[in-house]
């Protein structure tokens, strides 16, 4: 039990957690070799057993975790509904294009610059939040989305032509990022850094004041919390992370066009944090894992069904994407109806059930 503030801020609250974390770390470090060799401890696995997942999908999931955490910080913890997520991704892409493709800058510096530009724009975009609330703020960030898209498209057509912007292969301190394995470790570090930073931010006074602003801004103001400044700060931090993630994203893909930053992109990230659990870091992780990996898993299961099965086989062969969509949609509705607090809520229930057994209700 915590008896002082310092204890409450600790990263590992119990010794058990240290053990689990070490086991988890070992598993994460062993994961690339499992996925590359398609075998575990020398025992071979079929594609279906591995649920059709490869290192590439894991890398996308890690990127999604970073971006989802940033969005959750803004929407879940501070209560600011913002549709500008894709716009900040695109800002990261433009900064990377200007600095690296056109002027050749070291990779880490590009990431930092992308983050800073994103933070600046984010702070600026946060200004309407001082006056608008809820759905009306949503629309003003929607305007940002289109403006950023327009700027990106003009920049792209003027400097790179219609085929998109191609990025050079980056290297970190002499370590070239030329394979999924190398990217995995970089992205793992990025995700860990993001989660750690956000967790630490949220366990100190300034982070908790964000939650206060979300829950009851008038009371927060009465307590002496500078509500406006905190909102802008939330926008700035969230946009920093998102733009840096945007830069990472385009380097990993090697190529991007303005068409990639759609409204669907934004809605996907909203879906991730809602399903995962708003206002929860674990929720961001779980939501990102579910949303990016589950469609792949369902597709793999769909392909493994024999096409000659009476009705289902034909449907899966001809309309695979649609069947995956129906199943995914039904799953989401089930989760939302029975556990509105999302996957994080499910996890907390599970944990409570196990630790308090047989006394859990």
């Amino acid at each position, binding site marked *: 039990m915590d008896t002082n503030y310092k204890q409450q801020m600790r990263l590992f609250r119990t010794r058990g957690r240290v053990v689990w974390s070490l086991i988890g770390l070992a598993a994460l470090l062993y994961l690339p070799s499992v996925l590359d060799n398609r075998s575990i401890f020398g025992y071979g696995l079929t594609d279906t057993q591995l649920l059709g997942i490869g290192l590439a999908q894991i890398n996308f999931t890690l990127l999604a975790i970073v971006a989802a955490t940033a969005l959750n910080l803004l929407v879940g913890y501070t209560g600011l509904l913002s549709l500008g997520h894709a716009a900040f991704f695109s800002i990261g892409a433009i900064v990377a294009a200007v600095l690296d493709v056109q002027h050749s800058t070291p990779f880490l510096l590009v990431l930092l610059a992308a983050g800073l530009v994103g933070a600046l724009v984010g702070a600026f975009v946060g200004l309407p939040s001082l006056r608008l609330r809820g759905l*009306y703020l949503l629309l003003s960030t929607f305007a940002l989305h289109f403006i950023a*898209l327009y700027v990106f*498209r003009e920049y792209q057509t003027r400097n790179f032509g219609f085929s998109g912007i191609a990025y050079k292969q980056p290297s970190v301190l002499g370590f070239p990022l030329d394979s999924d394995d190398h990217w995995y470790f970089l992205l793992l570090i990025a995700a860990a850094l993001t989660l750690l930073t956000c967790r630490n931010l949220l366990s100190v006074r300034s982070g908790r004041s964000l939650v206060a602003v979300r829950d009851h801004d008038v009371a927060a103001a009465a307590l002496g919390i500078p509500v406006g400044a905190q909102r802008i700060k939330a926008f700035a931090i969230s946009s920093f992370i998102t733009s840096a993630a945007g830069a990472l994203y385009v380097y990993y893909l090697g190529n991007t066009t303005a068409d990639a930053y759609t409204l669907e992109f934004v809605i996907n990230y909203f879906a991730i944090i809602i399903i995962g659990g708003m206002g929860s870091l674990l929720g961001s992780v779980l939501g990102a894992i579910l949303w990016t990996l589950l469609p792949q898993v369902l597709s793999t299961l769909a392909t493994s069904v024999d096409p000659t099965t009476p009705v289902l086989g034909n449907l899966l062969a001809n309309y695979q994407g649609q069947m995956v969509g129906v199943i995914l949609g039904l799953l989401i509705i089930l989760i939302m109806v029975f556990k509105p607090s999302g996957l994080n809520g499910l996890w907390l229930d599970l944990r409570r059930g196990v630790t308090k057994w047989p006394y859990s209700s």
Partner: protein
Amino acid sequence: MVEFFQFVIGGLAVGSIYGLVALGFVLIFKSTDVFNFAQGDLLMVGAYLLFTCLATFSLPMIPAILVALAMAALIGVLLQVIVFRPMIGKPLLTVVMVTIALSLIIRSVMQIIYGAQERTLPSRLPSDAFTFLGLHISRLDVIVMAVTAVTVTAFALFFRRSKLGLEMRATAESVEAAVLSGIDANKVFILAFGIGTATAALGGVLMGNLQTVSPQLNALGLLAFPAAVLGGLTSIPGAVVGGLIIGVIQQLSIGYISSTAANVVVYGLLLVMLLVRPYGLFGRPTVERV
């Protein structure tokens, strides 16, 4: 100058469709607090239902439209009873997520049933053109605007004069107070969904005539939200006015600047307007209790 008015006429026709979708959206939102992301997909369903009525059942145009609207209303009612009644009282974003998932399901199911290619309606409303004061107008555009005007008037009369309409308004103000007054809230919710879906389907029916029946029709739902917000999320006539304004601004932007700039202009102006008047053109400021 003629060119300007030509753009405006085109914008009013397109804007009427946005207005219809926004109308259904605001109706559902106001009565049941459900922010319906699937409104565009319901429009698509309406278009496909009309296609089935015309092609498979071989009905003449007017009966086909009525049957399609009735079927759409039934679907809306079923959705309310099966999906949204268990969600009453849940947080707003959870319900939004459910509508997003519903949108995905509706789209996928429609594509499985009808296939993914676009269809042309076997018979259509008349679309010949005539000139009026030097402007080229299509008969179909006039029909669309007329239908929208009639719908809005019917709604206004319904909500102001009829008992059911009053019940719906009461429930929209406060569910608890309405229930305490003896109003059956479930009936109101069912009605709201039925009418809201039918309105979206009406938009789909008109779109099917204006263009083609395709799975991409759901993209129209996107423009319903800014139309609704522009008019004020609590005002039904405001939604239609919002839609008309957005339609006109869009066409003027395409005409005088470019197609890609149109979205920027529409949303930019929307942003400016929201900063000046956050509750929309016709919305009433909501008083929040601390």
